[in-house]
């Protein structure tokens, strides 16, 4: 089943924004017995978040007068309409409590699941690039494969396997699993692990080589006519606002996963717009062809991430759901992914100094970490369907399942046992 992502941006009634924030705080406080329980029951939503934007101080120095808005982001399985309908049936009461503070929400006595969906659909904004760490895996599949792995582990730990050939162990595990009705689904659906699309990679490579002269000229134009005039981010982490950091940290590092919401403004002009659009196009192709194995540019900790442009391409949002702590982990992947992050964010205002679009920037570790924190937004509510699994666990569980169902040689069986 295919995973998708959707973003809704709804205007908030300006004088009701404090009430909305209080309401979201209340929803978050009761989430275990409330909305998170509802979302668990739906079993089709991987991640969800509400974020109120443009309601307070802009830490990135945005001077534009703006009206408050409410973001809703959903990463989900299957068809959009079906998901939205089920979502608004299951959580309708809570949706009403939230959206009653937003402009144009239908009168409460007239609401139906369909009218809630219709309202949200009026405020849809488009994704620019989407990354999925375990493409093809539905919430249901992820949960089932987790149980499968735990079951196998339990079985393996209950016996002594010394001297037993790997092939024998593999088939003993298989027998044990298949004799349990809980795992009947294994025989009903076969799944495969996504593969790198080599023809696609080659075509993309040829395409890039073909337009290389153009890209070089483009980078030179950007460098000599734009980058030199850039206002750069030159603060270090010690110079960031304690107010912002205290608020961000208050909801971080409770479980093994965290989230990140970031909002930045685009630099003016078509050259920057074309540059970022090209980077998004390239990202989407790379994600499709290569980054389908659980790593985004070498980063092995991201479940879902995406970029969204809105308000006539003048602003960029970035959302990520990942394992570990952002502030500390991000630093580890500057080496691998710095050029990609720089290529995208160098087109947004007040980024650490870049050269030729993809150098400098993220590689200036101290400024980059500070910039990343400074442009982060407080997420008012966040949901994860499987907070106990890392993305490596999710992918490994699928591999276990795939290999379990095959007939394996001794060598392959030994490799299978390593996955456990």
């Amino acid at each position, binding site marked *: 089943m295919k995973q998708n992502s959707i973003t809704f941006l709804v205007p908030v009634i300006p004088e009701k924004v404090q009430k909305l924030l209080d309401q979201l705080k209340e929803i978050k406080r009761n989430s275990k017995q409330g909305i998170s329980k509802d979302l668990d029951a739906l079993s089709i939503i991987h991640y969800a978040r509400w974020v109120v934007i443009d309601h307070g101080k802009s830490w990135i120095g945005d001077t534009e007068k703006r009206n408050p808005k409410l973001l809703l982001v959903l990463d989900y399985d299957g068809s959009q309409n079906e998901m939205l309908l089920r979502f608004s049936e299951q959580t309708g009461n809570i949706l009403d409590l939230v959206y009653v503070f937003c402009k144009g929400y239908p009168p409460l006595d007239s609401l139906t699941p369909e009218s809630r969906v219709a309202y949200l659909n009026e405020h849809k904004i488009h994704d620019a690039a989407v990354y999925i760490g375990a493409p093809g895996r539905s919430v249901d599949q992820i949960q089932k494969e987790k149980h499968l792995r735990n079951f196998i582990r339990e079985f393996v730990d209950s016996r002594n396997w010394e001297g037993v050939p790997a092939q024998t162990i593999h088939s003993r595990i298989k027998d044990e699993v298949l004799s349990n009705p809980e795992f009947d689904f294994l025989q009903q659906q076969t799944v495969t692990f996504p593969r790198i699309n080599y023809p696609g990679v080659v075509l993309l490579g040829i395409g890039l080589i073909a337009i290389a002269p153009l890209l070089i000229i483009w980078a030179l134009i950007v460098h000599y006519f734009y980058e030199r005039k850039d206002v750069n981010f030159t603060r270090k982490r010690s110079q960031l606002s304690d107010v912002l*950091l205290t608020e961000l940290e208050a909801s971080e590092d409770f479980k093994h996963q965290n989230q990140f919401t970031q909002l930045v403004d685009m630099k003016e002009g078509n050259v920057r717009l074309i540059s970022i659009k090209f980077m998004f196009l390239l990202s989407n192709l790379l994600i499709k062809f290569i980054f389908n194995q659980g790593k985004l540019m070498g980063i092995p900790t991201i479940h879902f991430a995406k970029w969204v442009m809105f308000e006539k391409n003048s602003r960029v949002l970035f959302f990520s759901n990942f394992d570990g*702590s952002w502030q*500390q982990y991000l630093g580890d992947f500057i080496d691998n992914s710095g050029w990609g992050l720089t290529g995208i964010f160098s087109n947004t205002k007040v980024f650490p100094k870049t050269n030729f679009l993809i150098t400098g920037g993220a590689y200036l570790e101290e400024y980059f970490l500070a910039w990343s924190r400074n442009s982060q937004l407080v997420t008012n509510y966040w949901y994860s369907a499987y907070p106990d699994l890392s993305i490596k666990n999710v992918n490994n569980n699928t591999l276990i399942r795939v290999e379990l169902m095959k007939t394996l040689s001794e060598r392959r069986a030994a490799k299978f046992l390593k996955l456990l």
Partner: protein
Amino acid sequence: MTMLELDNIQGYLIRGYAHMLYSRFVYLQISDAGSAKIWLSKIWKEITSAKHFHDKSKISSTHLNLAFTHDGLRALGLNEENLGAFSREFRQGMVAPHRSRLLGDTESSSPENWSWGASHQEPIHLCLMIFGNDKQFVDNLEKDKVVCLNYYEELASEFAGHGLKELFYIDGKTQPDNKEHFGFRDGISQPIIEGSGRVGDKDDVIKTGEFLFGYKNEFGVYPDSPLIVKEQGDLNLLSSDTGGSGQKDLGRDGTFMVIRQLDQDVNKFWSFMNENSKNPDGSINVAESLKLGAKFMGRWQNGAPITLFPDEDPGISSLVNDFGYAKFDRDGLKCPFGSHLRRQNPRDNVDDHGRKESLKLSKQHRIIRRARLYGEIYEGSPTNLTPKGEVGLVFVCFNADISRQFEFLQYTWANLPKNKELYNDPDPIIGAKETLDPGEEQNFTIQDIPVSKTIKNIPRVVTVKGGGYFFFPSINVLRYLSTL
């Protein structure tokens, strides 16, 4: 590569003072800034620097180093603008709620149960580190103690007259073979600061800026050093920011020092090993228990790495440190992925990265460790597991970026159970939780042929009893602070 100004760097950063078996860390409060600055204007001359002596007889029999908390710098009179220039971790201290969550300081290890350093206790301003060695004797703890405590008495007689109030002290001992209470040799692998003049394996040579402000770090940029924002004191004593801002640099040749008092439950540790390795008849299998302990730790008790000596302790104290995991043990069959040492310094095998990339990542998370023992000197083993009273170690480490070094190691590589391809395995020495959530497991996986084994329900064997973040300034900066 430039040679460092060793005369200006406090010695404990570069040297462990291993021959000084006795030390006393005194925690002080400044009650009168004026008098304290007079004291500081004299004491900075006595501070032990990192200067190297070819002639060992010239090394003093006593050593002295000094560090400040953020509260301490404020009490001394550093103004708010300049106090604000320090990193957030240092400003907040170890006991901010978010930090406690990150560090795993919960339940028994929660600051509310600490003996010192928590917010409900008297704030600490200074830590004075006093070391002694009787040069007439070799490796004689009792003799060293006399020298150390005599020096302490001499120093302490000056406290009251100089606006300093002694809050408490912790005495730290070192065993000649540097074994800690679980019985394992400690402190074998240490990073070497580039430019410090020390030599060693090239994979252990780390860019100066990882440990000292004013130099480039492993990312090729300058660390976030506290720069003077608002002029005060005799600024001629400070060097200018090497980063080129034109500001004066309080940090240069200094660093941050992390102190944590870690109580060790020797009985719980070895009982667990004994229980999980016992003979079929229920009796203790000493050899297997020692082996399991070594798997948890990553080295045998005598210090030999299990990566190179997988079957048994080679017996003689082995300080072998020149090895990689990718090269000798990619599958964790000798040293499990979850072992304490493999997690804390994964060397050339971080996640599934290649060797070169792994080394690069490992180097971004190194710390210089200086642990000393408290309580009865006790060498735990499967058959010797009940020390008298509380025992543990005062863990000290140095780093320029507390967030990316100490805190990263404690959170990402110790507390997170998702290291490598693992599912439910925190660091078995310093990362285990006391109580688990419903349905949560806490295991140690031993990779093996034909299939790995799970050691279930590993206990928490280390409890945090106190701690703090300190600024460990250069000697020039100590002098500068006396001019505020």
